[in-house]
């Protein structure tokens, strides 16, 4: 069953077609990578799938609901309940500790639970840095906090826009390890990346060019553990 379906999706900025007639289905549990040159519409697509933006044309069906028809208020609710977002620039709240940053997501979702937030940090290997402010954390650590935050409400879809774009090799591996584990547990993951090594890990690779799907590669190594 498809968790996500894009049908003839376009996004037009003035005369620019950032997305041009995209058709794509993502089955539940799949790990999908999106590649493509800068400006090819990857972030635009993530924003639309992530309920942060609406397509100009076409429909986006997430878990049976056409999110292109929803109003901003219900989009906020869908985003909160079904989607975990990971950003290239981390986007942590700078005056809150790592732990509190995770708890904020709980707070807006339902109820903050310090113990559970702590477990999420443990899972990304940051139990020892829970009381640190973002400015006291390295880039890799910040991204791991961001991942812990994205996972805290058990989203059915994890969207990551260049999650390793600002990380060094070692941290990239830590993040990939977390993704592998999530994938094993059955999470649906969509990762935008420039990095072929990161894309390799996914089951399928969608390549965008000028807002269109140039090709889709099946990746047989995706199922293997430890590449």
């Amino acid at each position: 069953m498809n968790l996500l379906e894009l049908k003839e999706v376009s996004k037009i900025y003035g005369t620019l077609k950032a997305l041009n007639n995209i058709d794509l289905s993502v089955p539940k549990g799949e790990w999908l990578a999106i590649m493509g040159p800068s400006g090819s519409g990857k972030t635009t697509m993530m924003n639309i799938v992530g309920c942060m933006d609406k397509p100009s044309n076409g429909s986006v069906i997430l878990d049976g609901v056409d999110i292109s028809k929803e109003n901003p208020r219900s989009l906020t609710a869908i985003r909160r309940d079904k989607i975990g977002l990971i950003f290239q620039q981390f986007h942590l709240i700078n005056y809150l500790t790592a732990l509190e940053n995770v708890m904020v997501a709980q707070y807006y979702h339902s109820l903050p639970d310090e113990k559970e937030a702590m477990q999420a940090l443990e899972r990304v290997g940051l139990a020892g840095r829970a009381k640190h402010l973002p400015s006291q954390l390295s880039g890799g650590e910040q991204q791991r906090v961001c991942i812990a935050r994205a996972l805290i409400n058990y989203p059915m879809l994890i969207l990551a826009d260049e999650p390793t774009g600002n990380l060094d090799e070692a941290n990239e591996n830590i993040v990939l390890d977390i993704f592998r584990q999530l994938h094993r547990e059955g999470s649906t993951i969509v990762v935008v990346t420039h990095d072929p090594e990161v894309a390799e890990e996914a089951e399928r690779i969608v390549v965008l060019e000028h807002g269109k799907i140039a090709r889709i590669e099946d990746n047989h190594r995706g199922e293997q553990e430890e590449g």
Partner: protein
Amino acid sequence: MYLRMITASLVRRRSRMLVALLAVAVGATILSGLVTIYHDIPHQMGQEFRSYGANLILVPSGEETSLSGTDVKEAVSYFPSDSVVGVAPYRYQAVKINEQPFMAAGTDLAEVRKTSPYWFVNGQWPEEPGSILVGTAVADLIRLVPGSQLTITGNDANGKVFSRDFTLSGIVQTGGKEEEFIFMSMADLEDAMGDLDVIDVVECSISASGTQLNSYVQQIEASVPAVTPRLVKRVTESEGTVLTKLQALVYLVTVVVLLLTMICVATTMMAVVTERRKEIGLKKALGASNESVTKDFLGEGLILGAFGGLLGVGLGFIFAQTVSLNVFTRPISFRLSMIPVTILISILITGLACLLPVRSAVDVDPAIVLRGE
């Protein structure tokens, strides 16, 4: 979590919040300071006005020709003792110096100094029995200087001629009819006249508003039939006019300053909020509703407003005190009611100032906010 989040925002973003707090506090200071001054003006000016002389006089009622000391005492008891600046009784008597006729006034010279602080005395105020003051008109006419000896003659209460020697201690300049009088102590005049307890008029200088004075007049009229109290309209009415105009002026200044302060606080808060558009976008991306985000910022704003207001109450009083000491050279009284009023207004203004920029920021798509850089 809500409280944890907003306190973290206030505490860990200390320098930013300090700027906002300062803006609120300055606004609250000026507001509470000016309002305090506004309310204190009648009191302050009332004291000030008393240097222009008596504002209430007591005269005999009806057919009576004089007042007795007991009547006067009873009438004066209707003034609150802390608002009585001075009460000076006068007894007038036609006398002669070198066969020239003059009017002598027996009075309590210590009280005259209080009721008529505008008198300018060349020489000294009399302190010993037998020393007197004369008006400049009198002094000019018979060429007297301080220290001169003079003899005053007249008819006493029984019609017999009296003659007394006096020393001139000072010459009075007022620009008014006082310059034609001779002033001596009540005791000296009574000694010469041979009778006691005759008072023609009592000048009272009372620190009170027009309405208060009117109520004293009514009370005395009702309770002391021998005494007729009268307001010195010339003084009380001009006092009222000056007061109204002055208060209107301060009121206007207060309103203008309040408006400017509001704009200043609003701009500061707007800057603080606009700077945090990304945070707003992020919170929305995490699934926060517009209401939640607004609530977060409003909470911060309200706390800022409350603390700023509290600070403003204290600083405002210091401000009002400084102004009062410099302008009126008198301390101002602290008004307890200023505490809740200032804090409430600060909270209101800060809340409003927060709400506007948050409202506009909250409607922006999180995608646009997060996309930047």
